[in-house]
């Protein structure tokens, strides 16, 4: 199946139904293996002891929160430049998921900060920029629900998403550019990871599991969004039909073929 075929929502939904069981199995498998490794296999850290295990949730959630906004930015380009019919569906469906991962990142980070640093929160560049990311997710959700017409909402949200993308490199490099309480990057850094392999492997397994979980949730949310838009089109058509039947007193129902074509058009 070529990528272009996925522009057709019906084919896209068919594909989602096919890959979903595999994705669910992979998510559960990797996260189960990762959690087992995180709690029973990974050793205590030499200076942080057992507290280091918070990392196995905190870091994958942080990565996914950045990945999600980056993916939404690509979708935003798809909406604004190529007018791809599924890109604004993808962007909208990702917003609450990205917000949830960012929230998990902030909460676990706070729980980690208290025992290690001695504080739940500090207004340093890394923590603040991630909080800004979380607020931008909420703002994006608010924008989507403010504008009723999906096409117009999609364009406005796409512009906000691209503007917000500026924050992504700021988050990544905040720990290098300014003095912060948060430590610098451990995995994606020049010179290779500074995490011993016995701790790094569980982390990577969890990260893969979180990525599958994100993909699963995102495809489900996209499918729901497509169905929601079809429902919206159906309701509008029904309203238009009952209006016109009152006006002309004709009761002829539209042929099912015509209705089907109209739903298809509405979804795109």
């Amino acid at each position, binding site marked *: 199946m070529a990528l272009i075929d996925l522009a057709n929502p019906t084919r896209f939904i068919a594909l989602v139904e096919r890959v979903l069981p595999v994705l669910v199995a992979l998510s559960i498998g990797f996260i189960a293996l990762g959690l087992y490794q995180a709690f029973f296999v990974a*050793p*205590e*850290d*030499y*200076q*942080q002891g057992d507290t*280091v295990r918070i*990392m196995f949730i905190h870091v994958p959630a942080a990565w996914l929160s950045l990945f999600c906004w980056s993916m939404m930015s690509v979708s935003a*380009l798809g909406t*604004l*430049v*190529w007018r791809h019919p599924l890109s604004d569906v993808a962007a909208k469906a990702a917003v609450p998921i990205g917000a949830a991962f960012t929230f998990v990142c902030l909460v676990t980070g706070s729980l980690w900060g208290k*025992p*290690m*640093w*001695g*504080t739940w929160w*500090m*207004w*340093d*560049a890394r923590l603040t920029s991630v909080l800004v990311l979380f607020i931008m997710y909420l703002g994006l959700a608010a924008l989507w629900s403010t504008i009723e017409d999906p096409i117009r909402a999609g364009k406005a949200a796409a512009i906000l998403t*691209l*503007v917000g993308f*500026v924050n992504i490199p*700021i988050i990544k490099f905040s720990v*290098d*550019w*300014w*003095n*912060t*309480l948060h*430590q*610098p*990057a*451990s995995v994606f*850094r020049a010179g290779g990871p*500074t*995490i*011993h392999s*016995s*701790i*790094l492997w569980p982390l990577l397994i969890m990260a893969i599991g979180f990525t599958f979980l994100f993909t699963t949730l995102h495809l489900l949310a996209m499918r729901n969004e497509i169905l929601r838009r079809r429902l919206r089109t159906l309701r509008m058509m029904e309203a238009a039909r009952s209006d016109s039947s009152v006006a002309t007193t004709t009761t002829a129902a539209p042929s099912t073929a015509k209705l089907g074509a109209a739903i298809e058009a509405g979804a795109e």
Partner: protein
Amino acid sequence: MTRKQRRLTLIGVAGTVLLAAVGLVLFALSGKITLFVTPADIAAKNIGPGQQIRLGGLVKVGSVVKSDGAAVRFEIEDTVKTIKVTYAGVLPDLFREGQGVVTEGKLTADGGFVADTVLAKHDETYMPKEVADSLKAQGHWNPADANKPKPQ
């Protein structure tokens, strides 16, 4: 130029302008964004006594003195200067000699520092205790590397 190319160009230009603007703002505000100053910064930035600041650096090895009362004395150093700190309160678990710390408080007239809070930084290395011990035994241990504050 097709319409798609035109839209793409427009987004590219707008994005570049936005990046430049944000970059300038962050550069101008970097003194405010940075969480703490180091001992060397205090002289360079003319920070006087009585001003509430955050001072960060490494706890100098051999400088920690716990007296009978609750007060603790230690020295914070960067690569250039050292400042004597007194603090009465609970220290975080990670506080120890050679560790990165961020303290908040005021400079005194004699060039010392009275801290209200002491927070511990940790570096970005993670390893099992046995590995750390064997690294130390082999003399490959350099924990202070990552804790070094950045020059402002």
